[in-house]
């Protein structure tokens, strides 16, 4: 795995391959993962980032983890993605999924996913929670999902 270290003050974004997601998805623990697929060029995605930031702060002391998976082009990491994250002071963990052959892995995330972003996967393997949302979601919608199953 490659880690793009900028200077210390800068937001760190790990560059990952699909295996990263596969491993995370099969992890056997009691953490609820909220995985949001987004990109800086995607207006509806950027619009909903504050919702995920709210989740990150609201659940910081609980077993809930938000990970923002950027589908920006790898070449844009240091020129677009990191400056964007710095400017917006995003606190949630961000990774960049560098897998340009989407046809290989979109179905493996969820068969119903057409490939439009934003898309969000919520899971807790121990609690057998699994939710897939294609399109915009909200803090309220996700807390509802987490609450009812907890």
């Amino acid at each position, binding site marked *: 795995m490659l880690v793009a270290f900028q200077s210390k003050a800068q937001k760190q974004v790990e560059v990952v391959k699909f295996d990263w997601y596969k491993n995370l998805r099969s992890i056997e623990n009691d953490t609820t993962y909220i995985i949001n697929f987004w990109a800086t060029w*995607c*207006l509806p995605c950027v619009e909903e980032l504050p919702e995920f930031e709210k989740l990150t702060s609201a659940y910081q002391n609980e077993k809930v983890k938000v990970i923002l998976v950027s589908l920006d082009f790898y070449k844009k990491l240091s020129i677009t993605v990191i400056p964007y994250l710095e400017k917006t002071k995003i606190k949630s963990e961000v990774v960049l999924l560098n897998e*340009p052959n989407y046809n290989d892995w979109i*179905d493996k995330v969820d068969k119903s996913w057409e490939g439009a972003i934003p898309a969000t996967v919520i899971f807790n393997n121990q609690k057998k929670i699994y939710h897939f949302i294609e399109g915009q979601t909200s803090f309220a919608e996700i807390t509802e999902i987490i609450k009812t199953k907890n």
Partner: protein
Amino acid sequence: MKALLFSLMAILTLSFVSFTNADNSGYKVGDKAKDFKLKNIDGKMVSMQDYQRATGIILIFTCNHCPFSVAYEDRIIELHNKYASKGYPVVAINSNDAIAYPADSYENMIERAQEKKFPFAYLHDETQDFAKLYGAAKTPHVFILKKVGTEFVVSYIGAIDDNSNEPELVKTKFVENALNEMLDGKEVSQPSTKAVGCSIKWKK
């Protein structure tokens, strides 16, 4: 009473199912495509009737603002140049809400088409009805239509190829493969593929 409640529930469940189906609706491979009538960048209305002599149409939902669409512009031009003479011209359609994305306005479509010298029709789906009818969710999103008699039948839905941002690293050209098979009279071996794209922004 119980029976009534049960049938009521059944009706409710059924209507919910059909609602969710309608929600994900759109064309599947094998469906007949309805005619369109949309304004081209030259101000003229274009419909399938204008393509009666073609063998089919490479219909591509695209737009100006989306980095994926921009990354594919040259490849879309190439597709048209390669396949129009074989009976499959490209027809590009922009269905985006110009309020959300001013770059996708009709005026900007004209400008972009002139800059890139688009050799194909670039139509404005202002009401977004056409994207909804087809089930186009993102840009670019390709629907290859094949003429059967006087009808156009959806023969392929999906991505152009397997690498949006690095054309030099493309391994599989999905659309070209499908077209070559169709031109050889063969069945399309991979009639649908998936790709990430910019979601078409629906009007509020």
